[in-house]
Structures are given as structure tokens and as C-alpha cells.
């Protein structure tokens, strides 16, 4: 396995007033399962619909309504499990998590506490070339999302929108293997990347389709290694859970703040209280969400409306056989097959669509050159224009055609850029070869024609000839003049050689 060559990054160390501290972080990621229908009802999951328009009788918890599992959501959860190399549990079960809130019509959330569908797996989180953290996944389970309470529309009333009620979520629970704020953000980014490759979650954090609960504790150096050796949590500090984070930047800031808060308490001789906290991005601090007196007793018990969920190994195998190439494998292949740099490989594989575009351009061509063109010209241009890869005016085949013209020496790099510009703005979909021919873009490599131009320039500029003979660095002036005289079509390497020869340099 290629990832065996990675070494783990150093944990983040925070210097307290008195001593050094390390961070220990575990995460629960709530990822909305990409599915047109909800987990237990046929209602739509479309985002941004009119309030309470995507609500079935089941979602509204009308009397006598019953949940029926959406098979596609199960398939998505299995696919996700396979994507993080996890064990798939052929028998799982649903439980009820009971609590009262107006945006939870049933008065309970159907979840999988005791028997999740996905067991242990892992995610490789790269922190630099050859450096990566292996984060263990403890479990992935399916559950229902809640609705939305709206408190700011009326001074006396609260409103509820049940559109999100019952939408399928995957909760992806990691082990406390993450050792710093940057790693935490990188973990979320990597998981998001995998989910998007798999098509099991769109990863839209702004819409709340990917949210993280972050568990943070601090310990003295050396303690984490003891935990690792024994899996005994008593070696670690007391953790606090920061709920509902939906931005990579806030995740880092919140962890950093929370770690420093805990260190200050400990160094003052105090004790960290295990609790749930919220991050306030305006103030840049975390604060306690609820006191112990309000602590929920969720009274979990097996949901009697649903039979245990049994799936067949053959079905899992079939899903496994249809898995796309995932980011780690794709990156390794790009490094090996195309010889691109580690950085370029990361950029190219960030999104599956981008990687596919590059793959099509680079196949059978100079990989490094293809990477340069795709990243600098194409991605750069798309970024500037705020377009996605799917909206690119230049297709992979066209860009490949441009590169072929360069490789065969038919056009120069400079011409290629002009050609790219024409394809982008004037001739979408056109064959680059035909465009180049129609526009007379042809690099002159015929030495006879170039020689004639060189001779003319030398004859016409005796002073420059004298200068160049005295200082050979000035010979470049002749090259420039020749290329100009040939309308930019002369092959610069051929011109250089002829100029040097004629000037006797």
C-alpha cells in the first residue's frame, strides 16, 4: 500500500503559562445523505423550498403514521462505509432518541445507537508531502435530521419549518486521533472530498449539509501515547463537545480557543467540566450550551416500528464493485503515471470532476505539461470567471489537441496560449488543429526561411552585430527581431541556433 510510506505529523503543542500541552480531538460529522427522498418518508429533500412544503404525514408525525426505510439511503451509507475502508454490518437496527422540541414532531429522532450500519474504518489525512494522520473511524450510523425553529420572525411566537425534518443523515464518528486544529480542518476536508467522490453527500457546509461536532481535550505530552498503547481514556483530559460547526475556519478557531480555555483552567488548578459548548464566531469564543440540570436523558430504546435492517453481502459486494476511484488512489496514480508534483496531484484530485478532466487531457501526453495547462490556464481561468469545470468552454479533448500541436512542434507555447484564448472566447467546441490552420498559426521550422530572415536582419543592423559580438548576451535581440519578422511563427530554438551561427558566437 502506498500510504504506508506516510509518517504522522507532529501533534500541535500549545505553550501554557507553566507547561506544554497537547490537543486530542475527535469528531462527529453529520453528513446529509444525497438522496431525493427522506430517510423514512417519500417527501422531497430539495433545499430552499417554501417552508413546510416538503412534509409528508410521516414527517409531521400525524397519528398512526409509520416510518419505512428508504433503500437508497441505506445504499449511500454502505457506499460511504466502503469509502472509508470500514466494516459493513449486515444487520443493523434503529433506535429512538427521545426528547421534546417543536422542530422534532415525533418527539424522538430515529437513529442507530446500539447497532450502526457501518463499523470501524479509517481516513488518511495528508498534512504535507509524505506526512499524514491516519484517523480511525469508530462507526457510521444513519439518523433523521430535525426541522428548523425560527425565533426571530415574531416577538411572541416561534415558527417551525419541517422541510428538513426526517432528511437522512450519516453520523460519522471518529476516534480521538486528531492532534491539532489544522488536522481537524484537514480531516473534515478529506472526509468531504471522499463523500463528494462517492456522491453520498454534496458536502455543502453553508447549507448545513455537512456539520461537525468537535470533541476537544488537552493533555500533557506523553499522555496520548499512553492512551494509544492501552486505549484507556483515563490517560486523556476531560473533553468538551463543540456543537454544530459548519465552517473549516471556525472549526480551527473554535478548537484553538477551547484548548486554551481548558489549559487556563487546568493551570489554575481547576477542573474541566464535561459539557456541550457552542462557538460564537462573532466573539471568537466557545460558551456552555446547557447546564447539567438541563442535561437530556434521551431514553434510547429500539424503534418498534422498524424491523432490524438486514442487508446481503452480495448486495454490498455489488456496491463495492461499482465504487469510483477514490482520492488516495487517484492521487497515487497521478503521481506515478503522470509524474506530476505532490502539490499538483493534490490540486488535481481535490474534486472528482477536475481529476477526470485532467485525466482526459493527460492520458498519452506529457503529464507535467498537462498539469501546468490544466491548473494554470484552465483552473485559473475558471476561477477568475467563477465557473465550474462543467461550465468550461474548453473541453478536455480540445485542450489535449492544443497540447498535441505543441508536442508536434506545429505551434509554439505562445501560439498555444493564443489558440487557447480563441477556443475559450470565440470558437467553443472547435477543433484546435483546424482553428490553428485557419488562423495561420504555424510555427516555422523550415531553416531556409528562418535563415533568410536572419540574414536580412544581420545585414540591416551592423551596429547591433558589433555589439552582440562584443557581448554575446545581446544576441537575443536578433532572435526577437527574427520572430517578429516571421509574425511569431519561427521556432525560437531554431532561430537562436542560426543567430549564434551567423554571428560566429
Amino acid at each position, binding site marked *: 500500500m502506498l500510504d504506508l510510506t506516510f509518517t504522522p505529523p507532529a501533534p500541535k503543542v500549545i505553550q501554557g503559562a507553566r507547561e506544554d500541552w497537547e490537543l486530542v480531538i475527535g469528531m462527529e460529522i453529520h453528513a446529509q445523505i444525497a438522496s431525493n427522498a427522506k430517510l423514512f418518508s417519500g417527501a422531497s429533500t430539495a433545499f430552499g423550498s417554501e417552508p413546510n412544503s416538503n412534509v409528508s*404525514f410521516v414527517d*409531521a*408525525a*400525524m*397519528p*398512526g*403514521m*409509520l*416510518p*419505512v*426505510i428508504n433503500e437508497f439511503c441505506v445504499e449511500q451509507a454502505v457506499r460511504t462505509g466502503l469509502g472509508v475502508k470500514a466494516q459493513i454490518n449486515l444487520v443493523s437496527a434503529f433506535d*429512538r432518541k*427521545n426528547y*421534546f422540541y*417543536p422542530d422534532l*414532531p*415525533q*418527539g*424522538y429522532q430515529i437513529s442507530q445507537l446500539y447497532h450502526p450500519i457501518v463499523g470501524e474504518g479509517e481516513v488518511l489525512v495528508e498534512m504535507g508531502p509524505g506526512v499524514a494522520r491516519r484517523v480511525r473511524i469508530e462507526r457510521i450510523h444513519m439518523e433523521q435530521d430535525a426541522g428548523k425553529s425560527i425565533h426571530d420572525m415574531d416577538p411572541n411566537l*416561534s415558527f*417551525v419549518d419541517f422541510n428538513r425534518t426526517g432528511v437522512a443523515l450519516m453520523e460519522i464518528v471518529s476516534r480521538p486521533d486528531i492532534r491539532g486544529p489544522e488536522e481537524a480542518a484537514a480531516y473534515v476536508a478529506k472526509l468531504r472530498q471522499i463523500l463528494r467522490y462517492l456522491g453520498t453527500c454534496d458536502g455543502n457546509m453553508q447549507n448545513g449539509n455537512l456539520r461537525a461536532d468537535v470533541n476537544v481535550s488537552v493533555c500533557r505530552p506523553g499522555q496520548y501515547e499512553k492512551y494509544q498503547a492501552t486505549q484507556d481514556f483515563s490517560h486523556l483530559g476531560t473533553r468538551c463537545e463543540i456543537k454544530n460547526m459548519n465552517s473549516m475556519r471556525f472549526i480551527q478557531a473554535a478548537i484553538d480557543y477551547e484548548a486554551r480555555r481548558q489549559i487556563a483552567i487546568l493551570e489554575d488548578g481547576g477542573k474541566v467540566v464535561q459539557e456541550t459548548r457552542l462557538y460564537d464566531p462573532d466573539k471568537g469564543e466557545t460558551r456552555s450550551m446547557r447546564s447539567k440540570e438541563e442535561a437530556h*436523558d434521551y*431514553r*434510547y*430504546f429500539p424503534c*418498534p*416500528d*422498524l*424491523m432490524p435492517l438486514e442487508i446481503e453481502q452480495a448486495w454490498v459486494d455489488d456496491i463495492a464493485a461499482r465504487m469510483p476511484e477514490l482520492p488516495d488512489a487517484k492521487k497515487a496514480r497521478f503521481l506515478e503515471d503522470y509524474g506530476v508534483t505532490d502539490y499538483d496531484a493534490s490540486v488535481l484530485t481535490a474534486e472528482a470532476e477536475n481529476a477526470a478532466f485532467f485525466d482526459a487531457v493527460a492520458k498519452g501526453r506529457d503529464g507535467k505539461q498537462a498539469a501546468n495547462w490544466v491548473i494554470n490556464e484552465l483552473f485559473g481561468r475558471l476561477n477568475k470567471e467563477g465557473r465550474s469545470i462543467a461550465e468550461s468552454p474548453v473541453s478536455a479533448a480540445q485542450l489535449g489537441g492544443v497540447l498535441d500541436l505543441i508536442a508536434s512542434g506545429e505551434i509554439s507555447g505562445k501560439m498555444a496560449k493564443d489558440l487557447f484564448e480563441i477556443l475559450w472566447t470565440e470558437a467553443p467546441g472547435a477543433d484546435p488543429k483546424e482553428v490553428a490552420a485557419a488562423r495561420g498559426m504555424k510555427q516555422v521550422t523550415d531553416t531556409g526561411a528562418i535563415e533568410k530572415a536572419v540574414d536580412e536582419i544581420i545585414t540591416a543592423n551592423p551596429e547591433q552585430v558589433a555589439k552582440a559580438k562584443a557581448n554575446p548576451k545581446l544576441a537575443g535581440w536578433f532572435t526577437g527581431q527574427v520572430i517578429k519578422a516571421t509574425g511569431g511563427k519561427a521556432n525560437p530554438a531554431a532561430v537562436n541556433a542560426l543567430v549564434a551561427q551567423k554571428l560566429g558566437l
Partner: protein
Amino acid sequence: MTDLNRLSISEARDALRKGETTAKALTEACLTAIEGAGALNAFVHHTPEIARAQAAAADQRIAQGDAPAMCGIPLGIKDLFCTKGVPSQAASRILEGFRPEYESTVTTQLFEAGAVMLGKLSMDEFAMGSSNETACYGPVISPWRRQGDSAALTPGGSSGGSAAAVAADLCLGATGTDTGGSIRQPAAFTGIVGIKPTYGRVSRWGVIAFASSLDQAGPMTKTVRDAAIMLGAMSGHDPKDSTSADLPVPDFEAALTGDIRGKVIGIPREYRMEGMPAEIEALWTRGTEMLKDAGAQIRDISLPHTKYALPAYYVVAPAEASSNLARYDGVRYGHRASLAQGDGITQMYEKTRAEGFGKEVQRRIMIGTYVLSAGFYDAYYNRARKVRALIKRDFETVFAEGVDAILTPATPSSAFGIGEMASADPVEMYLNDVFTVTVNLAGLPGIAVPVGLDAKGLPMGLQLIGRPWEEGALLNHAYVLQRAAGFVSKPQKWW
């Protein structure tokens, strides 16, 4: 024909097919009977317009020769079933004004088979009770009275309205539901037949949930044959209920051969309870003799975990109920308490639920919440689940050893008086379910058949328990018992 409301379903079906009567005439006879039976307080929402329209449609179908067995048969529907546009409130104040926008699978199937809905029948609130006294509509009064005594008696519960209505000939049959005995106990109290099918045989979709893993709907009828006919129309796989079984529904009526020669009837020794009235004991013995005379073998059997059934039931059922009833919070439908200035969401929940739920429902919600709470879950809920598994195994063992059906008393006594249990320990009331809850815990089919009258002139019934999914065979045993018992008594009309 006169007294059309007194017909059984099979009699009415045959008469309809022969053109001797019409669905319209049957329906009018029942509507008249209902009008005159206000004193029983069985029908709590009347739907004569729906009934007349359905009867007219049924007559048309019959005329066209398309007449399923239930076509044109006037029925009462327990208030626990959601019926589109018709109040469906589980006899609870908390569902005041609730008219569902949907029709339960069971009533949908009955209506598709041509049945006629006369109205909704009272019940114990959320099906919690054994006397129909917890209904928000006030108690249902049994059509039966003790000889020479005008004291009001309970029809049993929770399907007390259904039992009273069928016993008093207000309808030809009624739907019931049974979580711990709520079909069989009231059937026994009122001298009618009630079957709780195998868990999963009948869809729970659109039936207001009490305890989801135990709830099962079934018919309450005047005869075993009627039960077979009506159960057939109610049964079948429903993709909207994940616990509904994807199994074919056999012709239950065809199973009524009256031949049980060589069948093995188990008599469980653990059901011989201390302090059981001699009359119940004697009834049980008589029933045993009847089956023996019909050619069955009688075998003493043991169901060793029986004594733990009632406590386990009163942990599992309230636990599920506490969760199932959380949705009645005043936010979306039903009753919402009027709030004082400054009241927040917590006050809204507390006031709404305190006003909306009766005492017994509140008690069970509290018990259920307690047994599921952190620190008690293992001691109560988990232990009860284990007991449940053992009870199920008890039955599996005797069935594996060749027992075809099990005969037990249906209730520990005949009907008691309204208010008689009011001051008692609630556990006294719970004891009514002692012979029936095992069947729900094990998910088996069970049927109550009227077998005789006690010294006070009140009906007494026996229960037969069958193998899972073998309702046909169970009904056949019940059919034999019914024929042998020859129970034909009807309450004397006083209302």
C-alpha cells in the same frame, strides 16, 4: 326481513347475495338501533351520511354481481383508527377536533371490500384500560346486566365500544385493536367473538399507536364465521407498515371445517391462577371436554414464564407508549392549552399534556419514561425484553412438541360494575389482562369465544391461542368450540 341489525355478517352476506335485503335496509336498521342506544354510549361519532353513501354504492356493486363478502355490511369503527375527514381521537381530549386527511389501511381495505361505516366507537383513552372508563367521552355501558340488578356494567376495554355495539346489535361487526387483551377481554365480557391475529398480519398504518410492538387490529363479531370473513378483509401485507408481514392471506372461512380430530390442545398449568373463581375454572374444564368430544387430544402443558408476563407487559407497553405519545404536544394538531403571559414552550407542553391526557394515560407515560431512563433501562426495559423472549420461547417449545392450539380462560372474571375498580390499586385493573398479554408478547394469534353464562347471567369466554400465521386453524378450533358451546344468549334490551 325484520331486525336486520341482528343478523350476523354471514347471514347478511347471504341475504344480500340472494337479493333478500339491501345494504341500504341493513344500514338503516343499524342507524335506527344506534339512535335508540344512546344510553350505551358506544358510538361517539356518527357518520350516517357516509354510511348511506357507502350502502348505496354497495347495493350497486351487489346488483352488478361484484360483491365481496363484506360488501354492504354495516360496521362500527374503533376511535383508534384514522378515518378520513371523520373525528379520530383515540377517546382522548388531546386529539380534540382532529380529523385525519388520510384513511387507515384497515378501513381502506374494509371500504374497498364494500363495508359500510356507521360511526366511530368509544374505547379506553389511547387503548389504555380494561373497562372503557378512561374514555374522554365517558364510560361505555354494557348492554348486559346482572340478573335482577340494574347496576351499570363495563363492556371491558379497551375495545369496549366495539364490544357493546356488536353485543347490542347496533352493527354487524366492529373493528377492535388488541395490545394486551383489548379485543379478547371485552369480547368475553359481552358474549361475542374477538380475534387478535398474529402480529404483522394486519397493517398498523393509520391506527393510532399505543405500543407498536404489541398493537394489532382485529375483528369483533357475533360469530366465529364472521370473524373469519372480516379478518380476511382486514389482513394483508402493507408496504407502509414495516412490521407488516409479506405473506398471502388464506381463505379463513374455508378453514372452518369443524373437524379437529387428532389435533392437540394444550392446557397450560400456569394459567390455573390462585383465587380464580370456580365458575371460570369450571368453564375451562367444560371447554376442554367440548374439544375432547370433538376428537381433539388434550395435553397438559407448561408455559413456565407465564407469571412474569404481566410485569414484563407493564414495562414494555408503557415504555413504547411514552415515546409514541410524545407527538401529542400541542404544536401541530389536537388540543393546545391556552397559555398565560410569559409562558414558554415548556409551559405549553406541560399544560397541554396535563389537560389533554387522562390520569391512566399520564400514569403509563410516567411509568414508561421511568423504565427507559438512564440507570433504570437495564433493570426494567431490558429485563422485560428478555422475559418477553423467554415467553415467546415457551410457546415455540410447546408448538414444536406438537401442540396445535392452547385453551385458557379469556378473563379472570365476568364483567364488573362501572366504578367498581375506581378506588382499587391500578394493578387490580391490570390483572384483567393476565391471560391475554402473553399472546401479545409472543406475537401469536388469540381468539375469545363465548362459552357460557355465570350464575349472575353474565357471559364468560374462553381463549384459544394458535400457532403464528395459522389463524385459519385457530378459527376452526374456535368454530368447534362455539358450536359445542351453543352460546346464543343475548342481553335483554333495557336501553
